[in-house]
């Protein structure tokens, strides 16, 4: 966009309430900001739990890993970890792409590739956990 002073009046034709609600052309508001915080809060205990669990299973064979994942509590927590991780990752990378990738087409392609990768990796992880659990 051309970045030069214009002769138009400095007041945008948009109410302050509309700006605060953030309901611009995308039609959505602060949900993304909230989702990033909510997933981060969930990931605090989940990632600590996962680190401890991984250390406790150092050198374990595949059958032992499958047994551990097969316990319902671990299945649920691992699925929660995977889902929160990929959601949080997609939101964080979206902010990075929006900041650094300029140009409408390049940005849209980057976002599509990133979201596609997040979905595929997330689904693959979920399917793997479910398959190990049953």
């Amino acid at each position, binding site marked *: 966009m051309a970045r030069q*002073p214009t*002769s138009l009046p*400095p007041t945008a034709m948009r109410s302050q309430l509309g700006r605060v609600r953030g309901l611009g052309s995308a039609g959505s508001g602060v949900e993304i900001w909230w989702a990033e*915080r909510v997933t981060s809060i969930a990931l605090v205990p989940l990632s600590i739990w996962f680190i401890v669990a991984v250390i406790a299973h*150092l050198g374990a064979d595949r059958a032992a890993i*499958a047994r551990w994942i097969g316990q319902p509590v671990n299945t649920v927590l691992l699925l929660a970890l995977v889902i929160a991780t990929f959601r949080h990752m997609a939101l964080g*990378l979206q902010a990075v792409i929006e900041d650094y990738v300029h140009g409408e087409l390049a940005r849209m392609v980057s976002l599509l590739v990133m979201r596609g990768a997040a979905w595929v990796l997330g689904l693959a*992880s979920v399917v793997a956990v479910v398959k190990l659990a049953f």
Partner: protein
Amino acid sequence: MTDIRDTLLVAQNSEGKRVLRPLSPHLQIYRPQISSMLSITHRATGIALSIGTLLLTWWLVAAATSDSAFAGVQGFIGSWFGVLLLFGWSAALYYHLLAGIRHLGWDAGYGFEIPRFHQTGYAVLIGTAVLTVLTWIVIAVVA
């Protein structure tokens, strides 16, 4: 003007002349400070951890697939390169976790006073170092 957002950038200077509001200066203009360095590190560790999800997915899918696939991923994790990556990712995870908690504090309205801001910043760095070293000592003992 091509975009409604442009109107938010237009202002008047003290002489009544219409000017564009300044944008943030480039990174190179600022002297590196603890505040900006920790901020960019939070983002960098987030990107590094995103790449780390490839290993998480590989590990889970391999475990769900076959003994040979699982042996493959375990072999990679056990190699010097795998250990190096895991060490880096563990440090990145602890950093992002601690700095993330610091961010949540700000979101709730706490910790904006400059002395407190610097204290929590150094606490994140020290906490990352302590937790990372502690984790690998435990791994060395268990393994």
